[in-house]
Every structure is written in structure tokens, then in C-alpha cells.
């Protein structure tokens, strides 16, 4: 059987690479070592200080694709202290985030990071929550600048409040889920709704409450 190799390397976020390799599963590590692509990837990974043992055992010898595994770069990212992940996310946002409020947002995040570092009782900022928040702010055009605070769990929480009947609060629980509370005006009684939903669905769920009328700049 001919060796089949498919390689993708892409810039996942600032300074980090993520690689996905598909090697012919019948080939051994020794055989794969003859493959120029394998050597290229191995050299690239060693540049990031990753142990050859981790790479070879988990991704080559056991065969990628037999089950979903984290790439070596993702494992490397996971090993970073949360503080480093936060700093990197803020730096990345300063350079690449498309939100019109990015300077104010990154200044606020920098402040929140500093106060959590100075308070031993603070949980610190949840990196997944931070990244989800930054992506959300970037994804909705013309969002007004919200209040940005930290929940006791270290999640990023944002609020827009126009008046007693127009209130939206979102806590980014993880990379995928958010908890929200929305108050919206209604002829009879104020609508009050809360829930935990996938972040991708958040704006769709909020749309009937017409939050875009007071959360988004015209």
C-alpha cells in the first residue's frame, strides 16, 4: 500500500500552530520517518519544544484518525498557565479583533487580569470564556460597548442596560455555552427570560426580544 499523507498546518491563534496529520495507519513510525513530510512536521514541532515521545506515541504509532485526539500544538497550549493564555488572547485581540471597541475592551480585560493576579482569592479569568466573548463581540457588527465584569467563577460577563425594561446580561461559561438573562418591554408585563444555550445560537434566541434596537448602534 502506498503511503498516504495529508498535512494541514494553519495558524490557529497568535504564535501557535495547529497541525493535523493523516498517515497511513499500516506504516510504522520507522517507515513514516522516511517520509519527507513526516520529517518536516517533526522538525517543526521540535521547534516548539515538544517532546518527540509525545508526538510519536500519540499521533504516529497509534495512528491518527482512529479517534479524535488533540494535536501536539493543542496539547502545548493546554499546558500553558491560564495567565499566559489570557495575555496571549488580549494581545491577539489588540492586533486582530475587528470590534470597533477593541481598544477599550482590551484595556478593560488587561485591568481585570491585573486585579485577579493581585488577589489570591480570585479564581482568575477563564481563558475559554474570554475567547468566546472576544469572538462574540467581533461577530455582531455595531454592538454597543457593554459593562464587562467577572463572575466568581472567572467567566467574562457582559451587560447592556438601557432602562428597567431593557436589560441583557450574558455570561460566557465556556468556549461553547453562554448563560443569558434578558428583560424586554411588553405591553402587559416586562418579559424576563433566562437560559443556557450554545453561543452560536445566542443572537438567534435573543432576536425576538428585539435587543438589537438598544444593544446595537444604528
Amino acid at each position: 500500500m502506498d503511503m498516504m499523507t495529508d498535512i494541514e498546518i494553519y495558524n490557529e491563534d497568535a504564535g501557535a500552530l495547529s497541525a493535523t496529520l493523516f498517515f497511513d495507519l499500516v506504516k510504522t513510525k520507522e517507515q513514516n520517518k522516511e517520509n519527507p513530510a513526516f520529517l518536516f512536521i517533526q522538525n517543526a514541532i521540535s521547534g516548539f519544544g515538544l517532546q518527540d515521545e509525545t508526538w510519536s506515541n500519540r499521533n504516529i504509532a497509534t495512528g491518527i484518525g482512529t479517534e479524535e485526539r488533540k494535536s501536539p500544538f493543542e496539547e502545548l497550549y493546554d499546558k500553558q498557565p491560564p495567565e499566559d493564555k489570557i495575555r496571549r488572547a488580549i494581545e491577539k485581540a489588540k492586533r486582530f479583533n475587528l470590534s470597533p471597541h477593541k481598544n477599550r475592551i482590551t484595556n478593560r480585560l488587561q485591568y481585570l487580569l491585573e486585579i485577579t493576579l493581585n488577589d489570591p482569592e480570585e479564581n482568575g479569568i477563564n481563558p475559554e470564556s474570554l475567547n468566546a466573548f472576544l469572538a462574540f463581540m467581533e461577530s455582531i457588527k455595531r454592538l454597543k460597548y457593554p459593562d464587562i465584569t467577572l463572575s466568581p467563577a472567572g467567566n467574562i460577563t457582559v451587560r447592556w442596560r438601557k432602562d428597567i425594561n431593557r436589560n441583557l446580561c450574558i455570561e460566557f461559561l465556556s468556549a461553547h455555552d453562554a448563560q443569558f438573562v434578558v428583560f424586554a418591554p411588553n405591553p402587559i408585563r416586562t418579559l424576563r427570560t433566562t437560559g443556557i444555550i450554545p453561543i452560536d445560537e445566542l443572537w438567534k434566541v435573543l432576536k425576538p426580544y428585539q435587543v438589537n434596537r438598544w444593544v446595537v448602534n444604528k
Partner: protein
Amino acid sequence: MTNGSKVPDSDHIARYCKPGTLNENKIPTGDSFYLRSSEPSLTVNWLEFLDANNRNNAIEKLR
């Protein structure tokens, strides 16, 4: 004073709000009133019990 003691209407209570829970105008938000891991229920401090003579000292003791 014990848990459940009644606070006279003339007295005051205060809750320490961590800086990260305040908005940029230093106003407490909903995050300020989340239960902390050490709290079985929302807790406040009886300011007159902390220092009946000096409000600033009483507030300082909350930190």
C-alpha cells in the same frame, strides 16, 4: 450578635464587592451578588457592629 440577629432599621449593612465585579464607573453589577464558593447564602456585614463610631473604618474592615 448571632446569625439571624435582626438589624435595626436605623443601622446599615454592606457587602464587599470584588473589583472585577464592578463596572467601569465602580458601580456593583449582578456579579457582585453571586454567591461565592464559601457562602451558603448571600452575606453582608453589619456596619455598626464593625465600628459604630467610624463608617470608613467599618468599610475598611470589609476588605
